[in-house]
């Protein structure tokens, strides 16, 4: 059985935000929520690094551990999903998650939290696959269609990969070997030669 994971290669991510746009468009994500976001470290300085972050579908998910209504479940291939019919919008998962994955739509008065929304690895939720109800609550269920998350499939530089963790780690290992362990072999020395 595959263990589904995301992997973002920071040497390849060019901060285009294509993954964010693809995700928002595919799932008709509520206003004010970004299930995926791109974080840039050392922005504007030489050697800046960008990483695309969403739910990492943790093996021992802290969101599931703190949920008071136990609305989280994990599929056999390791995708962490939740039931919006059980969610009470308490926000515990938001505080527990180290990646800032769970978010809340701001559509109600007086700052009332709606149901938590997060990356589903394009696997929908506990409703009939690809039904209208599932799409409205969780977005499209691409996994049921035999497809993988659109953010990764759309990534122009193949920085973001999604699939079986064993294969991902093998691809990443080969990339590192090919680079020879150098941190930035492709761009910076060409674009900004030292001393110029």
């Amino acid at each position: 059985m595959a263990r589904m994971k995301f992997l973002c290669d920071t040497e390849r991510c060019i901060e285009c935000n294509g993954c964010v746009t693809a995700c928002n468009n595919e799932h008709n994500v509520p206003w004010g929520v970004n299930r995926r976001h791109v974080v840039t470290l050392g922005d504007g300085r030489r050697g800046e690094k960008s990483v695309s972050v969403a739910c990492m579908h943790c093996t021992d998910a802290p969101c599931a551990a703190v949920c008071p209504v136990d609305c989280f479940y994990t599929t056999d291939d390791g995708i962490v999903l939740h039931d919006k019919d059980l969610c009470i919008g308490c926000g515990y998962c938001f505080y527990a998650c180290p990646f800032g994955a769970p978010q809340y739509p701001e559509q109600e008065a007086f700052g009332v939290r709606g149901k938590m929304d997060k990356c589903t690895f394009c696997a929908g939720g506990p409703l009939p696959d690809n039904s209208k109800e599932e799409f409205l609550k969780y977005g499209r269920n691409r996994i049921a269609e035999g497809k993988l998350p659109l953010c990764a499939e759309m990534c122009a530089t193949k920085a973001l990969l999604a699939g079986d963790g064993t294969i991902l780690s093998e691809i990443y290992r080969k990339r590192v070997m090919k680079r020879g362990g150098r941190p930035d072999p492709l761009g910076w020395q060409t674009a900004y030669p030292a001393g110029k």
Partner: protein
Amino acid sequence: MRKTFFGALCLLLLAGCYGPVEIAFHEPAHYKGTTDPLLAKGRSPEQQELLLERFKKGQTDR
């Protein structure tokens, strides 16, 4: 007569305080919602093969 009336009234009022005595045992971190049909589908080898083929088509290194 009056004592009997008040006694009966008190019993009647207390009857409204009845609650179920069965205790709902809570198993922490056990999912309580409906079953996702994707779980059964995901266990099939065909579905696993389909996802693997999809990965090889679109996401292998280049």
